[in-house]
Each structure stands twice: as C-alpha cells, then as structure tokens.
C-alpha cells in the first residue's frame, strides 16, 4: 500500500516534482518561519503540520546566559529540517555580512536568507546594499537566498552577484496583503524561467499562496500568517494544501481567461420546446 503524502508534498513519485535549491532536492514547496508563535510547542506543531522541509531562524544577542539560545537551538535541531538563517534587521552591507558569517558558524550551514532593510516602516529591501552583500557572501561560499523586490533589473544583478535563487516579496513583511503586483511577479517568472523563485513576505491567506504558485512560482516562504492564526497548526496545514493545489494547477495548465461567456454544456442536441404549428 502506498503511504499517503504528508501535507505540502505532492502525491506523485517522490522525485518527479522536487525543487532544486543550490543542488539540493526539496520535497515541500512551503518554507516556514519560526518567529511570533505563542510558545515553542505551538511552533513545533505548526512546523510539523506544514510539512515544510526548510525553516528560517535568526541570531540575536545572547541574554546573560539564560539558556534561551541553547533551548531554541535544541528545539530546531530536533525538527530535523534544513535551517535557513536570516539577516533580519540588518540595514547595512557590513551588518548583513557579519551576521551571515556568525550564522554560518552557529547554525552550521552556508545557506543564508539575506536581508538588507532600507526602511523600517515598509521593511523594503535596500536593493543596492543587497546586491553588494550578495556579491561578497557568494564570494565567501555562501548560498544566498536574497529577500528582494520584484524588480527585474535587481533580479538580474543578484543573479550576476552569484545568487541561484531569488525571493521576491509579494507585499511588505507582516502586512498579509497578498500579491500586490501580480503583473511584476508574472514578468519575473517569465524573464527567469529556470531560476528558483520563492515568494517571500506579504502572504496573508492560503489563497494568496495558491495564487503565487499558479503563476509558476516555485515555493512560498511565510511566517506571520501561520504564527498569528488562531490555530497555527491548522493554518499551516491550510497553507500546505493551498501551495500544493497551486502547484498542481500550474503544472496542469490553467485555462485562458475570456471576456465573453462560453457555455460548457454542448449546444448540439439541445431540445426544442416550441409549440407545434396548428396549421
């Protein structure tokens, strides 16, 4: 008997639709953040319900030897998943590069979600600093996952800087506003058909995630929408299913939209109920 797939995994032979990120196969197209949950246990339950293969983590100041860093490390290590450390909160190239170097040692991975923030109100990426930090870190052997805008020229420069994956925003971090510029996202997908594109930030509802996947994006990274749900584990499962649905729909091929209605039931053979002619 074939085992049922976990949430977020395709009900297909395991390697048929795997996502390749820096040469590694990933079997879930949902990446989940570990922040903002009401407790570590609720975070663990949400991660498990999501079926995610990659979770994002961060570094903060060690708080006087209270052991919180070590406890969090033990928790995420026991999840047995790929860790993607971020440089959240960094505003300069220097801060981001140093944080990435420190994260590589602590989390024992050369993967880094690179964030260089330009503005605290919008959390918009500083794309100039981002490209420069990506160039430096790629040169040091990091596998850079840049949190970027949907700008084509920025995307080109990030690829030239050594990035093999791009993570454009759907909307500003934490807003939950969904795909605010689907045209730009569609353009990005069309211009870079072979580059893994992960929508990162701004996803608020499973329908947003499904919409991005239907556009052909390769994966979704989210945090707040799950962590701040009334029931994070159930929301994680909802997102996993929507991401799977969007992926299947993209692979199946969506029908083209039309301006005019078109009947789905054949007109041929339609009965006539006209009254017979009395003459």
């Amino acid at each position, binding site marked *: 008997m074939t085992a049922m797939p976990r949430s977020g995994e395709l009900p297909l032979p395991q390697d048929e639709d795997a996502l390749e990120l820096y040469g590694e196969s990933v079997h879930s197209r949902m990446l989940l953040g570990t922040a903002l949950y009401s407790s570590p246990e609720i975070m663990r339950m949400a991660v498990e319900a999501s079926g995610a293969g990659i979770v994002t983590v961060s570094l903060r100041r*060690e708080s006087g030897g209270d052991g919180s860093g070590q406890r969090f490390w033990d928790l995420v290590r026991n999840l047995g998943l790929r860790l993607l450390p971020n440089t959240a909160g960094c505003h300069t190239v220097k801060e981001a590069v140093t944080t990435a170097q420190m994260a590589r040692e602590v989390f024992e991975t050369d993967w880094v979600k690179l964030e260089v923030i330009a503005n605290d109100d919008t959390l918009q990426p500083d794309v100039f600093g981002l490209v420069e930090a990506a160039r430096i870190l790629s040169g040091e052997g990091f596998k850079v996952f840049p949190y970027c805008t949907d700008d084509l020229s920025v995307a080109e420069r990030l690829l030239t800087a050594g990035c093999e994956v791009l993570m454009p925003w759907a909307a500003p971090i934490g807003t939950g506003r969904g795909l605010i510029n689907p045209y730009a996202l569609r353009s990005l997908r069309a211009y870079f058909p072979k580059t893994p594109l992960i929508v990162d930030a701004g996803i608020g509802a499973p329908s947003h995630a499904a919409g991005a996947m239907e556009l052909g994006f390769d994966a979704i990274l989210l945090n707040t929408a799950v962590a701040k749900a009334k029931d994070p584990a159930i929301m994680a499962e909802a997102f996993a299913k929507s991401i799977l649905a969007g992926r299947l729909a993209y692979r199946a091929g969506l029908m083209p939209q039309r301006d005019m209605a078109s009947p789905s039931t054949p007109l041929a053979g339609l009965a006539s109920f006209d009254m017979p002619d009395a003459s």
Partner: protein
Amino acid sequence: MKIKVNGELKLTAAKNLEELCRELGVTEARIATARNGEFVPAAARAKAGIAEGDAIEILSPRQGG
C-alpha cells in the same frame, strides 16, 4: 578596562575574547562572536585581543522569519 558587550558597558579584566566568554559564562553556549563589527570565529577567540573601548557582540540562535 571598559568595553561594550551587546551594547552594554562592562568592566573586564579579560585579555582576549575567549577569556571574556569564560568570564560571562557563555563558553559552553552555542554562540558566535564579533569584535568591532568583524566576525571572530570560535577557533580565533583566544588570539583576539581586547582593548579599551572595544565593542563585542555575542549572538545566539533565535526564532526568525
């Protein structure tokens, strides 16, 4: 001498980063260190001297999005 550790002023007699970590009781913790904005790998802490006014950052794993 006076230095800053994670943004707070601190008096220390430590001569290098390894001694400072021992003084702070974080030698066994999963941490990463930086001195004056430069990453100092764990293996290099004993050779990373500390001078008056240095700014030390000691970071550990946290939740992230």
